[in-house]
């Protein structure tokens, strides 16, 4: 007589597989040796823009800098000041600043860390007849003295949801999606 397999066992196996998959795609790195409480001030460098909107990177950078400053956890330099500092160290390549450049920038601006980033998606995305706004950002924090990455994270928010497909509507406004992505990144920074 064949033994009947318990349905609960199948569910447990499926759940374990999903959990393992989720762990495999974790998109946050936090250096365990870094004392994040010692960070007093940071500079948010201009983000690299991989989208078709010329000002996407500037918008996301501004939103991120404002929300980070609003947390009160660190002091964020104003963008003009960052630009002045970049002017003193020379041109930063598109791939990001070198360790030497980070150290020079930190000395010039008297900061503890630098945040760089890439905006890879910003704007409407279509799926069939439905469309919605999407933002995809990835950030890195580089500590001044060692020049190593102590935190990195990415976030993608927005996109075409089930409700957008069923009911239409165009999704959420761009600024709302951007705020969600920024808040998600900050949650990953302060976790």
């Amino acid at each position, binding site marked *: 007589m064949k033994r009947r397999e318990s349905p609960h066992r199948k569910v447990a196996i499926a759940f374990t597989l999903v959990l393992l998959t989720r762990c495999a795609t974790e998109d946050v790195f936090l250096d365990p040796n870094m004392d994040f409480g010692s960070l007093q001030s940071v500079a948010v460098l201009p983000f690299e823009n991989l989208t078709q909107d010329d000002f996407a990177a500037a*918008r996301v950078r*501004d939103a991120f800098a*404002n929300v980070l400053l609003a947390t009160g956890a660190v002091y*964020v330099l104003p963008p*003009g*000041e960052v*630009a*002045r500092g970049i002017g003193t160290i020379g041109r930063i390549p598109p791939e990001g600043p070198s360790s030497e450049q980070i150290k020079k920038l930190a000395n010039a601006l008297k900061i503890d860390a630098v945040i760089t980033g890439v905006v890879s998606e910003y704007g409407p995305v279509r799926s069939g007849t439905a469309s919605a706004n999407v933002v995809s950002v990835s950030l890195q924090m580089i500590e001044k003295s060692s020049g190593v990455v102590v935190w990195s994270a990415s976030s993608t928010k927005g996109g075409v949801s089930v409700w957008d497909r069923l009911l239409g509507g165009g999704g959420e406004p761009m600024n709302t999606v951007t705020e969600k992505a920024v808040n998600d990144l900050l949650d990953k920074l302060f976790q």
Partner: protein
Amino acid sequence: MIPALLSLASCALWKGRSAEPLESGFLRPDEEAVRRRDLIAVLPVDNLTGTRAPLESVEAILRAHLDRRGFRIVDDRTLARVMKRYRVRDTGSLNSRVSGAIKEETGAAGVLVTSLGVFSDEQSPRISLLSRLVVGGDHPEIAWMDGVGLAGNGHFGMLELGRIEEIDDLLEVAARCLVESLAISFFGTETPEPSKTRNAFNECDSRGDVVYSPPEAKGKKRFRPRNVFGSPIVDANRRYSMAVIPFLNLSQRKNAGKILELHFVNQLLRNESLTVVEPGLVREELLAHRVVMEAGPSLANAEILSNDESLGVDLVFSGVVFDYQDAVGIPKVDFSVTVIDKENHKVVWSSRSHGTGEEGVFFFDMGMVHTAHQLASEMARGTSEALNR
């Protein structure tokens, strides 16, 4: 039956607006700035529309309304001679040299500086004017400021009887409102008296009427900044001097940075804790130091303005504008602001604001904001109120 209902409805609307007394609201009650028989010089209108606009017509209509209201105006030929002699090109602001020259050579007690933000008759006519009266000769100061933003399809009332189809008619309403606001602020009564509170004021609303705004009135929640950082080092009981720098413009709209600067000067002037410097003086200092703000607010620029040998201001207000859509369609405004202080050389205030005219509107366009002028004005007011908390 229907005429009776109509008249009842219109009475209710009229009563709702004029129930508040139109008191005289001085911005500077301790100054004998301008009186009824003093001369006023009216500068040519500054074009911030980003396109061609009939500036002479706008100026002519303004002058006509000023004349009708009893103001004495310097004749345009005399003023043109002074402007030519002193090579005045920028009519949107007043520096110390030009202000002193106008006072000395024309005898004008004040100079009316007007900027045209929007002049569009695509789809539905829209107009935006920001005007201020600058007094003080060699040390120009703003004595009065107001703005008006109107759309032909806004507040057209029952059966669309109030809809305005022609841009010229809209301009008449706008000019009348501005001049009335100026007149009430200074000549509200036969013998001008200071207002009971320092920052009580009259302003043009979105219907083109002058309404009284008591100091305790607060703006709507939807126009307040979304994210705010406020440093506790700013003393709420102290009075600060502030310079407003033109915003860095990252939008598609030309002159959006200057327009937002004016909106903030207008709203910050009403803040009891702040004395706002005339934008012309700020421009003069930035030009003298060859400052080009390519990337937004910086400590170096703030230091130039807060230096005691230049303007010596306590706070420098600047920001970035990302979006300013006003000519057609639903208005949209998106900006962030930063305030840097003199003593600590740090950011003491930072906020991000964005909104559209149709946010929070669900039934029959109730609460719709039809012009970017009105939207920007409300958002600037929301930021100014948040600054004061």
